[in-house]
C-alpha cells in the first residue's frame, strides 16, 4: 500500500526508482563503516596522516624529477604537478568510492560474497562500500590542494568554456578510474587470487598517469588512449587546460572526448560485472 502511494507521488517507473535508491543505500553503508572505524580515533588519525604523508612523498618525487630534468615532454614543474594532481584526484576519488572492489577474491574465498548475495541490497553497492574509510580523504585533499596551486601557477587562458569544462573533466576522470577499478576487480570472478595482477592496472595506471604520458613513447600513448583509456584521466585534460597541441601527434579533438569515453567505459564495466556475477559459482564447503 505504502509502496503504491510513493510510486504515484514520485511518478517514476520502478527501474529508475531502484537506481535512485542505490546511492542512498551506499551512503548509509559508508556511514556505518565510518562510524565503525571512528571507534578507534587514534588509529584512524594515524592512518589518515600516513596516507597523507605517502601522497606528499609521491608529490615530492614529481618535484625532484622535474627539478633534475627541467622540462619533461615540454611540461614545466607546475604543469607536471597539474598532471599529477588530476591523476591523483581521480584515482583517490575512485578509491574512496569503490576501492574495496579489489577485495572481491577475498570475499569469494571466505564465502562472505555469498552473504552479500542473499541480502536485499545490490551486491555491487555492498562490495563498493565494504570497509569504507574516511582515511582515503588523506589522498584526495592533498591532490586537490596541489590541483588548485597548479591551476593558479600555470599559464591558463581561463575562457568560460574552460571554467565549465574543468568539473566535467574531473568527473570524467573519476568515472574512468572507477570503471577501470571495477573491471580489474571483476577479474577475480575468474581467478580469485588475481588481486595483485589487478593492482598492476589500478595502481599501475595511477603511477603511469601521474606524469605527462608523452614521456613513455608513442606506442604506449596510443594504447592508453585507444585500449585502456587512461589518457583521458590526466593527459588529455591537461592538454586542454594548457591549450597545448599533442606532442605525440594524436588528433586534437580527442581532448573533448573525455565524458564520452567515461560513459562508454562505465557501460562496459557494468556489463563485465553482470557477466561475472552470472558466471559466479560459490566456492563450496
Amino acid at each position, binding site marked *: 500500500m505504502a509502496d503504491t502511494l510513493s510510486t504515484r507521488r514520485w511518478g517514476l517507473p520502478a527501474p529508475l526508482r531502484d537506481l535512485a535508491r542505490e546511492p542512498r543505500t551506499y551512503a548509509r553503508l559508508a556511514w556505518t563503516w565510518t562510524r565503525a572505524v571512528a571507534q578507534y580515533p*587514534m*588509529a584512524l588519525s*594515524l*592512518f589518515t596522516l*600516513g596516507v597523507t*604523508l*605517502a601522497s606528499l*612523498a*609521491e608529490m615530492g*618525487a614529481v618535484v*625532484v*624529477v622535474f627539478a*633534475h*630534468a*627541467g*622540462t*619533461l*615532454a615540454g611540461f614545466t614543474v607546475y604543469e607536471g604537478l597539474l598532471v599529477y594532481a588530476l591523476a591523483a584526484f581521480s584515482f583517490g576519488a575512485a578509491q574512496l568510492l569503490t576501492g574495496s572492489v579489489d577485495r572481491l577474491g577475498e570475499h569469494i574465498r571466505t564465502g562472505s560474497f555469498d552473504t552479500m548475495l542473499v541480502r536485499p541490497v545490490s551486491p555491487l553497492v555492498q562490495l563498493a562500500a565494504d570497509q569504507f574509510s574516511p582515511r582515503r580523504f588523506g589522498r584526495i585533499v592533498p591532490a586537490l590542494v596541489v590541483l588548485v596551486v597548479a591551476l593558479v601557477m600555470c599559464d591558463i587562458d581561463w575562457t568560460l568554456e574552460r571554467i565549465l569544462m574543468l568539473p566535467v573533466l574531473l568527473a570524467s576522470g573519476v568515472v574512468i578510474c572507477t570503471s577501470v577499478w571495477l573491471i580489474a576487480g571483476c577479474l577475480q570472478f575468474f*581467478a580469485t*587470487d*588475481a*588481486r*595483485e*595482477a589487478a*593492482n*598492476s592496472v589500478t*595502481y*599501475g595506471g595511477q*603511477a*603511469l598517469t601521474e*606524469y605527462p604520458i608523452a*614521456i*613513455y*613513447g608513442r606506442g*604506449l600513448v596510443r594504447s592508453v588512449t585507444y585500449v585502456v583509456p587512461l589518457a583521458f584521466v590526466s593527459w588529455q585534460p591537461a592538454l586542454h587546460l594548457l591549450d597545448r597541441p599533442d606532442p605525440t601527434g594524436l588528433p586534437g579533438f580527442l581532448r573533448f572526448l573525455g565524458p564520452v569515453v567515461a560513459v562508454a567505459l562505465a557501460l562496459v564495466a557494468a556489463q563485465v560485472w553482470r557477466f561475472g556475477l552470472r558466471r559466479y559459482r560459490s566456492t563450496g564447503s
Partner: protein
Amino acid sequence: MRVHAAVYARGLRRHSTYRAALVAGALTNAVFGAINAMVLLAVFAARPEINGYDASDAVTQVFVGQALIAVTMIVNTAPSLDLAERVRGGEVATDLLRPVSLLGWWMAEDLGRATFTFLFRGVPTFCVGLLLFDVVLPGSPVQVVAVLLSAVLATVIGFALRYLCSLSGFWLLDSRGLWTASGLVAPVAAGMLLPLALFPPALADVLRYLPWASMVQIPAEILLGKDSLPGGGAFGGLALQAGWAVALLVFAAWLTGRATRRVVIQGG
C-alpha cells in the same frame, strides 16, 4: 639447528603453494618497474648524469628494487609477518611454549619464504627488466657472489625490522600504526621511490647509512660497482649491511627477552 632447517623448509614449501599469486605478483612488479624506469629514462634524457648516476644505473636500481620488494617486504603498510597478528591475538603463547627461541623460529620461517620469493618472483622480475631495458649485470663471478650475499643481508635486515615491528605489539597492543609508518618511510629511505642519487647529496649521504638503504640502494650500488659505497667499494657496502643485520638481530634478541618477561597469558 635441525629444527630451524625444518622450519625453513616448511616456510619455503608453504609459500610454493600460491603459484597464481606469484605470477600475478611478478607481473605487477615488472609493470611498476617499467613505469618507474621510463620516467627515469626521460629524466636522464634531459640530463645524462646526475650525481654519478647515468640512465642505465638508474634503471638497474629500479629493477633491483622491484626484484627485492617482495623478498624484504619493506613497502607493506599492513603487518607482513604472521607474528604481529599472533601477538595481538594471543596465539604467541603457543610460540613461546616451543623449546626453540622465538627469534630463531620466525627467522627460519621467513627466510624460507624469502628464498622461494627471490627465486620465483624476484629473479623473473629482474629478467623482465633485462629484456626491456639496458639493465647492468654483474661483470665477474666475484661480483655475482657479492650481489647474492648483499641480497641475503638485505633479506635479514628486512626480517629484523619486521620482527621488531611485530614485537612492539607487546607494548602497543596494536602494532598496525607502526607498520604503516615503517611502510611509508621505507620506500623513500631505501631508494625505492627514487634512487638516492637524485636526492640532495647531504640528505642522500645520511640516508645511505640508515638500515633501509641496505635493502635497495646498497645492493644496487654493489651490483653497479659504485665508489659512493661506504669505504669506496663492495666490501664496505657488505660490511655496512652485515653491521646492520647483526645490530638489529642483537637488539631483537634482547627485546624478545624483555617482551616475554612482560607477557601475561589469560585463561587456561
